[in-house]
């Protein structure tokens, strides 16, 4: 009998998160401590996970540089990978989780005894998505996706006092499960066509054989694109996003949207670019079409929204389209950089929304932002930086990210897509400018806002990151471009 070789390092970050989730629940049951104590347990779990991620990163870079063996990066009978791509995605997820929890802290505190459940769910969701970005086996991708998504469905319905929260939870649940079922059917058809679940094995299959009747495989690829497109809210599969962003508790939405985007795009990039790169003539036009539709449709619909959360939802649909141009370009580093940068901006923006309209509320009309600059100058300034960053103004990280994915797509021969993307960027700019004008150009009304310290920190970190990586993008760009998938 062969004993399987187990490289625990590959899953130590996820183990840390999962054990952290268990620890939070147990500590809550045993001692019923103050919220700060639970926060420290969570911070401990995240720190441990981040530390192991750094170890993995060093090991991945050594292996690529030739000091170690590439085989070391494949663990658990080729189920989990520790390559630079996985580690970068995991790192982005962990940082987003830490900032997301901080942003939602006032909401978590307000949940009373259920706060431990919320924290545990957040850690479990991150563990699931972390598995998703590092999985080599498509069934593992599905498992990670479901562990993450199921936790997010519950988080969406966490504030039971608000009737929109359970509506958002149900819509997210029904459409999310629908998308997962479509994705796994795609996986099953790929398996039927190739006999493989492993992404790396699928790649060698397609480079070794020319498939003469690829019908089943093509349907499988299409279904996987649809399923993952749902998860990253790309048009035309975005119908759930506005309702969920609006109905779910504001303190969690930023986190929920950001981690789903990071994990979804990491999976899309790995499956399509790494696994199915040899079939790209078949899927490139489809992804380019989805990308164009998302950019234009998302920006147009964002323009007409009266609720800031729906506006942010449609703008995230547009952003999904922009990131997809990077997938069309075929360079994973641009995709990673874009999602990492956008995740921070998204969490920061929803920290502002939670501060302005209350962390558990669901109404967040654009009018509430009128004259925010006089009522709370710091909040307005930070929000402006984030919005301009999302719009992709030069000297913000959003510009560097957009420039990267657009130039990848241009050199891949998709010039028309880049032209559409630039036009959509102009439209998107109008969307964000509308909020900025609303904050600065109209008269103040209403009382001065009381902004929680946690939201202030999150906003400061997100705005600083947006500006620093806009002026000196080198540090993050170097990391992203040395984050090779195997």
């Amino acid at each position, binding site marked *: 009998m062969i004993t399987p070789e187990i490289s625990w390092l590959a899953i130590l970050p996820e183990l840390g998160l999962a054990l952290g989730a268990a620890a939070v629940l147990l500590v809550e049951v045993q001692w019923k401590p103050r919220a700060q104590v639970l926060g420290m347990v969570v911070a401990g779990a995240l720190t441990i996970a981040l530390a192991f991620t750094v170890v993995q990163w060093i090991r991945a870079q050594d292996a690529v540089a030739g000091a170690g063996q590439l085989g070391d990066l494949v663990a658990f009978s080729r189920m989990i990978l520790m390559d630079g791509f996985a580690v970068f995605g995991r790192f982005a997820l962990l940082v987003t989780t830490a900032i997301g929890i901080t942003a939602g802290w006032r909401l978590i505190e307000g949940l009373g005894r259920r706060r431990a459940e919320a924290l545990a769910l957040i850690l479990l969701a991150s563990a699931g998505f972390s598995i998703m970005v590092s999985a080599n086996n498509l069934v593992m991708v599905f498992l990670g996706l479901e562990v993450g998504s199921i936790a997010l*469905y519950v988080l969406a319905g966490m504030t039971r006092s608000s*009737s929109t929260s359970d509506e958002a939870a149900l*819509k997210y649940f*029904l459409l999310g499960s629908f998308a997962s079922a479509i994705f796994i059917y795609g996986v099953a058809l790929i398996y039927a066509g190739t*006999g493989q679940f492993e992404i790396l094995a699928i790649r060698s299959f397609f480079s070794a054989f020319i498939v003469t009747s690829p019908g089943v495989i093509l349907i499988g690829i299409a279904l996987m694109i649809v399923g993952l497109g749902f998860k990253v809210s790309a048009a035309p599969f975005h119908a759930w996003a506005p309702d969920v962003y*609006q109905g779910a508790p504001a303190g969690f939405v930023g986190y929920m949207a950001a981690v789903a985007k990071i994990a979804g795009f990491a999976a899309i990039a790995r499956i399509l670019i790494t696994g199915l790169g040899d079939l790209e003539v078949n899927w490139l036009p489809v992804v380019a079409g989805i990308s164009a539709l998302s950019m234009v449709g998302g920006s147009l619909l964002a323009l007409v*929204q009266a609720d800031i959360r729906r506006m942010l939802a449609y703008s995230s649909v547009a952003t999904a389209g922009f990131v997809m141009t990077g997938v069309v370009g075929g360079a994973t580093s641009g995709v990673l950089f874009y999602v990492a940068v956008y995740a921070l901006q998204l969490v920061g923006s929803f920290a502002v929304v939670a501060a302005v309209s209350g962390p558990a509320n669901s109404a967040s009309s654009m009018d509430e932002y009128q004259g925010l600059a006089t009522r709370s100058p710091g909040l307005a300034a930070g929000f402006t930086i984030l919005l301009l960053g999302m719009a992709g103004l030069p000297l913000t990280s959003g510009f560097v990210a957009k420039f990267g994915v657009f130039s990848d797509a241009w050199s891949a021969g998709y010039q028309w897509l880049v032209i559409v993307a630039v036009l959509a960027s102009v439209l998107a700019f109008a969307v964000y400018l509308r909020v900025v004008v609303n904050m600065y150009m109209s008269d103040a009304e209403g009382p001065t806002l009381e902004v929680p310290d946690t939201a202030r920190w999150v906003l400061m970190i997100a705005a600083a990151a947006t500006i620093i990586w806009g002026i000196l993008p080198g540090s993050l760009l170097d990391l992203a471009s040395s984050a090779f998938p195997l």
Partner: protein
Amino acid sequence: MIVGAEWYMTVAAALFLIGAFGLLLRRNALIMFMCIELMLNAVNLTLIAAGRALNDLGGQVAVFFILVVAAAEVVVGLAIIVAIFRRRTTASVDELSELRG
């Protein structure tokens, strides 16, 4: 007549489509949820048939994972539906229209 894997996979595809269209057309949250289960079971049938045809255990092992995921989805899904039903005493998704814009 030999009933090969293609037959099973055709039945599975039909089941999957029934589930997908059911989800899109029905308006009761419980029925929609059952349609999702039907889709997942169609996937299971596909995997078993393909695994059998390829003489590979992987497909049949994957079915267990999908079954467990489906069970976890039932737990969360029914809880959400019950929470909705308590508040509104209806499980029709047409009544859920507070969120729009």
